[in-house]
Every structure is written in C-alpha cells, then in structure tokens.
C-alpha cells in the first residue's frame, strides 16, 4: 500500500512524489508570471500616476491589511508544520489537524478581506461597475486607477486562496480513504502552493498598503 503509485508511469511512490513536487514548482513558476504581469502593469501605471497611487494607498485600511498579513503568515506556519509532521511515523493525525488550521486561517483572511471590500464600497472607493466613486482629493482618475489595481490584484490573490482552501478541504475529506504515500504526496504539493500564495501576499501588501508610509 505504501508503495502504490497513482500514475502507471512510475515504478515507485518516492519517484512519483518527486515528480509531484517538480510539477508543483513548475506550476508555481507559471503562477509567478501571472502575478508578475499584473504587478508589472501596476508599476508601469504607477510611474505615470505616482502621487495618486500614494494618495490612494492612504485610503486603504492599514490595520486590516497588516492583520491579514499576520493571519496568512501564521497559516503558512501551520502548513509548514503539517508538512513536517506528515513524514513522521505518528504525525498523520496532527498533520490533518494542521491542514485544517491552515485552511481555517485562510478563510479568516478572506473574511477580513471581504469586510475591507465592504468598507471601501461604503466609502465610495470602488470605481467599478459604474458604482459611485466619491473620492474627493486631487487626481481622481489616478486614484481610481490605483483602486482598479487594488481590486484586481487582491481579487486575483483571493481567488488563489479560495482554490487552495478547496484543495486542502478535498485532501482532508479524502484523508481516510487514501494511503500514507498519497497523503504525503498531496500534503507536500499543497504546502508548496499554499506558501506561494502567501509569498504573493508578501509582495502585494507593501505595494498596496505601504507605498506611502
């Protein structure tokens, strides 16, 4: 059972785990370019509208953004421990619990993010779907562009987080029906992805929240 492979292509489960890990790294490289393209666009537009982007950044909730950073980093910590535990002889049960904690913290992040969105909507800072954009300071167009990027980037990130939570939930639900090797393979792979989503936030947070502090 411990040596069963999922794909007929592999002779050993160890080799398959290596392949999974490599596959996830390649996928992460791909994802990195997805975010890189958006971040690059952000940086280019910011060179045209520097002051407006700084002013827009001031309108964001520094407190909630920072709290969310802490939540996500803690979630990654839980994931990191889950990944080491899964390889220990008696660590499987703890590993599943830690996976659930990581996913739960991810959900908390999303909840806080949603509260932030709601607050920004209430303050008329969402320049989308023809909603009223009532920012009163200078260079309204530039500030609207900042918020365009803010919503696009954080929503793209949130979408990745949702996918991560769903994947973790799937792994946890299938936990009892899968063999040890499968559990280990899946935990390693999802942990890599989860850390990546975390790292993306580590880039977004300063770009959006800290540029004028």
């Amino acid at each position, binding site marked *: 059972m411990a040596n069963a492979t999922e794909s007929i292509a592999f002779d050993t489960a160890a080799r398959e785990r290596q392949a999974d890990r490599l*596959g996830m790294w390649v996928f992460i490289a791909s994802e990195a*370019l997805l975010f890189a393209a958006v971040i690059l*666009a952000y940086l280019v*537009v910011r060179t*045209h509208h520097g002051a407006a982007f700084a002013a827009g950044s001031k309108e964001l909730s520094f407190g909630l953004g920072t709290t969310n950073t802490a939540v996500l980093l803690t979630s990654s910590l839980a994931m990191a421990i889950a990944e080491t535990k899964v390889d220990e002889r008696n660590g499987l049960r703890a590993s599943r619990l830690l996976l659930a904690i990581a996913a739960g913290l991810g959900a908390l992040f999303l909840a806080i993010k949603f509260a932030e969105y709601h607050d920004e909507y209430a303050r008329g800072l969402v320049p989308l779907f023809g909603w009223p954009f009532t920012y009163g300071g200078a260079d309204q*167009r530039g500030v609207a562009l900042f918020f365009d990027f803010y919503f696009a980037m954080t929503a793209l990130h949130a979408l990745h987080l949702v996918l991560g939570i769903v994947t973790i939930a799937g792994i946890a639900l299938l936990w009892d029906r899968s063999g040890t090797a499968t559990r280990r393979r899946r935990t390693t792979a999802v942990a890599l992805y989860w850390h990546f989503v975390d790292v993306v936030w580590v880039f977004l947070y300063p770009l959006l929240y800290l540029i004028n502090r």
Partner: protein
Amino acid sequence: MTARAIQPHSYLGEDWGIAAWLTSTDHKRIAWLYFVAITAFFFLGGSMAVLIRAELVTPAGDLVSDDNYNRIFTIHGVVMVWFFLIPSVPATLGNFLLPLMIGARDLAFPRLNLASWYVFVGGSLFTLFAILMGGIDTGWTFYTPLSTMFANGWVTTAIAGVVIVGFSSIMTGINFIVTTHTLRAKGLTWFRLPIFVWTLYATSLILVLATPVLAAVLVLLALDRVAGIGIFDPALGGDPLLYQHLFWFYSHPAVYIMILPGMGVVSEVIPCFARRPLFGYTTVALATIAIAVFGFLVWGHHMFVSGQSAYAGLVFSLLSYCVAVPSAIKVFNWSLTLRKGEISFEAPMLYALCFMALFTFGGLSGLFLAALAVDVHLTDTYFVVAHFHYIMVGGMVTAYMAGLHFWWPKITGRMYPELPSQIAASILFVGFNLTFFPQFILGFLGMPRRYHAYPAEFQIWNDLSSAGALLLAVGYAMPLFYLGWSIFRGAPAPDNPWGATGLEWQTSSPPPAGNFAQTPVVDRPPYDYELPEGLE
C-alpha cells in the same frame, strides 16, 4: 517479427466504446482526442481563409460586408492561433510520442493530461459560442481601446475561451516538463534525447512561462469590458501601449511555441530518410533552448511604429537579430545532414524538405522586418502577413504533415498510401508559394493588412494569391481523405517501417497500452544511423 505473437494488445484494440475513449488516461488515446479536435478547428479556420481570399479577388468589398469581413479574419486568427497551431504538434504528436520516445509507460500525470483535453474543449466551446452568436471583430490581437471601448461583438466570451485554453496549454506544459525530467529510460541521458523531445521541452517552458502573462492581460482586458477597470483605457488614464507590451510578451514567444516542435519533427525525419546522424546534434539541441530564451526578449519588435521609445526599438531590433542566429544554424545543420547520406523521398521527407525551403524563406523575410527602418514601411502590411504565414503555415503546418505521415504507421498500425501523399506534398508546396509569395510584393507595395477593399493597382497580386489558395486547399484536403481511408484499408505497418532509431520504433505498431513489453534501456547516442541496414 516472431516477437509479434507475444505482444500485448494494442492501445486501439482494447475497448471501442465512446465512453472508453472519453475517459481513457492513455496518452495515445488522448492524442487522438486532440487530433479530432484540432483537425476540426483547422478546417474551420481554413474555410475562413478561403472566404478572405474570395473577398480579395476584386478590389471592391463586394462579397461580404465590411463588418463580416472583420469577423471572418478575426475568427481565422483566433481559431488558427489558439485552437490549431499552439496545440497542434505538442498535444497530438507530442502527446503520443513523448512517453514512447523516452521509454516511459505514460506521461507523469495521465489524469492531468485528460483534464487538459476537457479544458481545451471547454474553452473552445466559449469561443465557438462567441462565433455563432455573431462573432468578434477586433482582430486576434484584441488591441485596446478598440477591443474595450469600440467593439460590439462577443469579445468577453471569446477572451474567456482563449484564457481557458491557455490553462490547457499550461497543464500540457507542466506534464511534458515533469515527464522529461523524471521518466527517461535507464541510460537515456539528456544528450541522448531525440531533438523532438528537446523541442517539446523548450516549447513546454514557453507554454508554462508565457501563457500566464496572456491570461493576466486578457483578464484585465475583460475586466475593462465587464467592470470598467481603466488600466488600458486612455480615457480613464490607462495606457494602451502597456496592453501591446504585455500581449506581445506572450504572443511573440507563442510563435516559438508553434515553430519549435515543427523543427523537432523535421530533425527526426531528415536523419531517418538520409540514413545519417543529425549534423551537429548538440548545437541543434542548444539552439533550441537559445531560441526559447531569446524568444522572450524580442516582443517589442512588433511595436516599432507604435509610439514606444526609439531606444526600445534599438534594443528589440538587435535582440531580434540575435534570435535569428540559432534558427539559421538549424537550417545549416539540416542541410549538412544530407551530405553523404542515402536519401530517399517518401512523403515525410518531401514534407520535411518543403518545410526547410518555406521556413528559410520565412526566416529570411524576418530579417527585413527586424531592420528598423524597413519595418517602418513593412509593418502592418501584407509583407508581415506573408512572413508569418511562411513560418506558421509553410513551416509549422508542413512539419506537422511530415510528422503525421512519418509516425502514421506507429499511430494507426497502417501505412498511408505513398503516391497520393507525395502528390499532396507537391501540391502543397506549389500552392503555398503561389498563395503567399505575392503577398510579399503586396506588402512592399504598401497594401495594409486587414483591408476589406483595396486600390485597384493591387489586384493582380491578390488574384494570384487567391488562385494559390485554391490549390493549397486541395493540398490540405487530400490527406484528410487518403489518411482517413488508410485507417481502415491501409496496408498493415511493420513495427519499424523506416528503419528508424528512436525508442518509439522498438515497440509494436500500434503500441500496446503500456507502450513497451519490457522497459527499454538505452546505450547509444540518438540518430545512430551508422549501422548496416537490417540490423536493429
């Protein structure tokens, strides 16, 4: 041949129900699913091309309305680029052959492979829906602000299709990269890999690293239409040139996604029919990687008159000449491979030689476009149209035909009929040049692309081109019939009809479900055609 009695059942023989085909994770069956899908798209895109050439027979825009003409060439571009050219060789021949060539039982992630086909079909449904509901008239490049503010078609739906198909590309790319790294047979070191595997690997790198940028830029574009985000919209303070930069960051490497696997096919065919090892194997392998890397750095050469800075123009022009060097090297290497060979001219070889000629013409015309001052005159004219059709149709599609004929016996277990194939290859060569060579002259004369009507002085060349298109259509339709016929009636194929050296020829034709009765071990370099014939 006595071994045949103990061969396990062929992958084709097991179960012929529709459900069995649609749920199989066998890479060989998935390759067939892709064959069917992309052939349909090829003929859809091709029929649009016929309509375009029919409209351009006379200077006046008299066959279809201007709006319909714009829709037709947009559909032609979108379908051919994303639904035929990009998946063509990798998803069909690559899918079928990669595990066979490296001595593996399947790709690393067979279920991901099947999923990629479903994602491909799912995405294509979006685009087909957009086409059926009234089409899109932005051109395949979706330039802003035309695509965001001024186009009334089903742009968002079509874009959704393209983005979804992009995911399918990424899935295939990941699968190929991991497979090449982890599943090579014992003794099959990197520099013993066939060039086809090298090119699939390089293509996969581009698929994985460039496609997400396209996804990002198209999602931002769709958000502009749906939500009113202003990133590319000058009226909202956004930057339309930023769109072009990001779009070409994907779409230039995409050209290499299309051509590299074609180069790989030709690098297999030429040594086999010349009975000679590939000349300068290591150089060709490294040139493949060099093309993939440099290909990421030349996107700005699509934008010499767009208003980007003069210095950006200089850098992109210089880098474009740099990427031409590894391509030129390959042509020299293929030519020298023929030296002191024992050349025969079956259909795959004819197609491969066509490829060499057409790719060389296309490459040389690229030198004109990379020269800054000349590009100012030629860009956005028919010269560009001719240039990229020489590379993509003359190069890539011809290579695909070469590969299809070369591996047909392995894929189907039947021989294709030789004479009709040789005739089709010849018709293709003549028809292609007749269609596209006049377009170089049209471009130099100054006829802009995407013109529904044109001044009368251009008519003679347009008429030649349209006449060529008819011939070309015959050249492409013929294989559909004789290859289709041969699946049922062709002569049974031996395991290795060409006396070729790759691992894929060491198993039966067609191969069994797990590819090899025994996992092969490799102890020699690729293209080992030095052995006396008959000794395998």
